[in-house]
């Protein structure tokens, strides 16, 4: 509906003319103009508002909406439903399988009391196929973890044990959590992410109890992938915790809970993620605990292309040569790539605000941002090099050593 002579808009414009520094009023005008499909004018008012209040969240949101409307991209408020991968998991059969898993009475009793642990358990729909690139990781995951889980008889015939967890390690921001979620999706299990704040409590003894409750909740919700993010914080070397008995007890409790899963595969798959596996207490790496390790490296070329496309999708982008950017950004983590795109977007926004018209992102913008942003994985690889040099006596870090050699970092 064209409202070129809308009296409301006219009066608002007059009001803005009288009070040009009133940012909320200007945004209100911009919104009214956007509703009236007078997008270029709306964009100009957004730019004005941002000049007066840089970083204003409402102004940025409106600018994004107007920019998207101008470039014909659907706005976040108007999402196009994406086809979801169907989970082909037989839930009734799974529930039959775990029906005989007894919940210990003590656990039930504990759960009845007021508990600070929130059961943030979800049923993820993502699968490994949704992870862009990273074929090596997927293949190793399939061989070391998912394959034996899917083929228990075959695994048993070859003496492979079903107990024990999987430890994902690698530089920060490289998708360990996403992969863990995808593992849950592949197994058709619930996903229970546990962070340090879910466990560590201010009161003595409470952290251990929180851990027990988390495992109890996982048992109640089995089949369940229990995912400990940043497990180095919960399972730090006890020799480093000489002055904190409560933290040492937390490590002991974690070991004890992992052992309680050991003998019987009761539908709980324990996954851990850490940037520093070398800081973990060695007892956590023993058989039946986190005895399998999977290196999650910075995204490869295909994954970088997928990540860049993902972050560009809702932004007014012209012809961006994503492959060129992906070639420029080896060793960049997923988070670094997101930072590259947002840095480029900030530049394009500044240019748009100066010119008063929408200037879409170009390859040059993103290239310049990629040159500006340093990969955050550098310090991690510096430590990793020391680990491979000094601490790879049992071959635990052979994957890492091979990657470092391939990339001439060793």
């Amino acid at each position: 509906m064209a409202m070129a002579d809308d009296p409301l808009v006219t009066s608002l414009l007059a009001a803005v003319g009288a009070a040009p520094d009133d940012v909320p009023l200007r945004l209100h005008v911009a919104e009214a103009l956007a509703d009236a499909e007078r997008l270029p004018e709306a964009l100009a008012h957004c730019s004005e508002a941002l000049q007066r209040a840089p970083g204003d969240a409402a102004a940025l949101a409106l600018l994004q909406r107007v920019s998207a409307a101008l470039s014909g991209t659907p706005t976040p408020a108007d999402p196009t439903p994406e086809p979801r991968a169907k989970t082909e998991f037989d839930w009734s059969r799974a529930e039959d399988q775990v029906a005989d898993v007894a919940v210990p009475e003590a656990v039930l009793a504990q759960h009845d009391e007021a508990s600070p642990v929130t059961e943030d358990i979800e049923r993820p729909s993502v699968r490994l196929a949704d992870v862009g690139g990273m074929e090596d990781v997927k293949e190793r995951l399939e061989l070391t973890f998912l394959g034996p889980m899917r083929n228990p008889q075959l695994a048993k015939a070859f003496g492979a044990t079903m107990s024990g967890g999987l430890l994902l390690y690698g530089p920060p921001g490289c998708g360990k959590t996403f992969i863990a979620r995808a593992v849950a999706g592949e197994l058709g299990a619930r996903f229970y992410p546990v962070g340090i704040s879910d466990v560590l409590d201010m009161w003595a003894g409470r952290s251990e109890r929180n851990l027990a409750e988390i495992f109890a909740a996982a048992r109640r919700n089995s089949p369940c992938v229990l995912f400990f993010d940043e497990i180095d914080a919960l399972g730090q070397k006890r020799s480093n915790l000489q002055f904190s008995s409560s933290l040492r007890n937390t490590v002991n409790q974690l070991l004890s809970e992992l052992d309680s899963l050991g003998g019987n595969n009761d539908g709980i798959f324990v996954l851990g993620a850490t940037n520093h596996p070398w800081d973990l207490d060695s007892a956590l790496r023993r058989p039946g605990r986190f005895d399998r390790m999977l290196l999650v490296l910075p995204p490869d070329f295909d994954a970088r292309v997928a990540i860049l496309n993902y972050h560009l999708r809702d932004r007014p982008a012209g012809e961006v040569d994503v492959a060129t950017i992906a070639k420029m950004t080896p060793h960049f983590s997923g988070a670094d790539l997101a930072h590259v795109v947002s840095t480029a977007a900030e530049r394009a926004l500044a240019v748009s605000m100066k010119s008063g018209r929408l200037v879409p992102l170009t390859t040059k913008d993103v290239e310049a941002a990629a040159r500006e942003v340093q990969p955050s994985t550098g310090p991690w690889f510096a430590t990793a090099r020391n680990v491979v040099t000094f601490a790879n006596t049992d071959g635990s870090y052979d994957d890492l050593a091979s990657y470092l050699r391939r990339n001439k970092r060793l």
Partner: protein
Amino acid sequence: MPELGAIERIDNLRALRRFGDAEHLIRTALATEPQDALLLWRLSAVLLGTERVAEGLHAAKAAVAADSQDPDAHRLHALLLTASNRHQEATHAGYAAVTLAPQHAHTVTVYAHVLRCAGRYADAAAVARRAVELAPNDPETHMEVGDGALSAGDRHTARTAYENVLRLDPEHAAARRNLAAVDFMSRRPRKALGGLVEAGRIDPNTPHVLPIVAVVLWQLSWRMRIGLVIALVPVLIVGSKYGSDASWVTRVVGAVVLALAGVVAWWHFRGLPRGTGRVIVAALRGDGLLIATYVFIAFCLIVYVVVAITGVAPLASIIWPIAIVLTIIAIVSRIAAGSAHLAQSRRRNQSVTSVEDR
């Protein structure tokens, strides 16, 4: 005053080196209690842990202003002043801390550290010994005695102190590394090399391990160079007798030289931990001149092999110019090491960041 539980949570996060989370908690609590000394000095400790010295100093000053009777606030203030190279003020702050808590071993240890960084080695040693008296089973008090003695050049005391640390905490990587440094200074390169490899294995994040390995390899290379030149004497004596003719005597002398070189090499590298080769290669990669030195040494050995096979002694005379080149390389390396030492001494005060986390 914040809840004790909140303080314990902050301390747990600091112990786990989750400085970001700890800082967030502290700042949230400070929003309601901006003048709380307990929170302010913890904030300064967290900022020190992340090497944000200027910000940390600001927080420590605020903590002292909020509660001038809190020894922890003065302790952090002293450490941050040391990290800012303001040693005079740091010693005053450290003294204030120990005056308020004379029986607190950690505070006394920090004061010893502050005195050491100020160059007052004798005072630092006396204070560190007092810290050991207060807490004889705390490895960090012994560690400070060792570090102080090492700074003062007292290798015997340093060795005993580091051995005490390792007795109390066998997985103390820094003590293992520093004991290796003492071995290096005592001209025990094999023990030093083993200790360094062990320190890296215990904690791959231990700083300065590879550079010290490189220094030990330089020490070994001097021994090898001297050996190669000494070995040249009998070969050339034999050569003067037989000229450029092949002779069995030359072959035997060459073989003896090689056998002796093998024995010496075995003596120096025997019993080293698994993975030492990998560490040596990594250390060599970080020092081009060291690589050149070992390449030339390897070439000299090949020359001796050729002499032992052919029996032609004058071939060994090529080792003379190589020995001269090796000497030039060593001099260049010494000059470069001198510059590096200056940079290291500037960095020394930054080691303050780890004292509070001990």
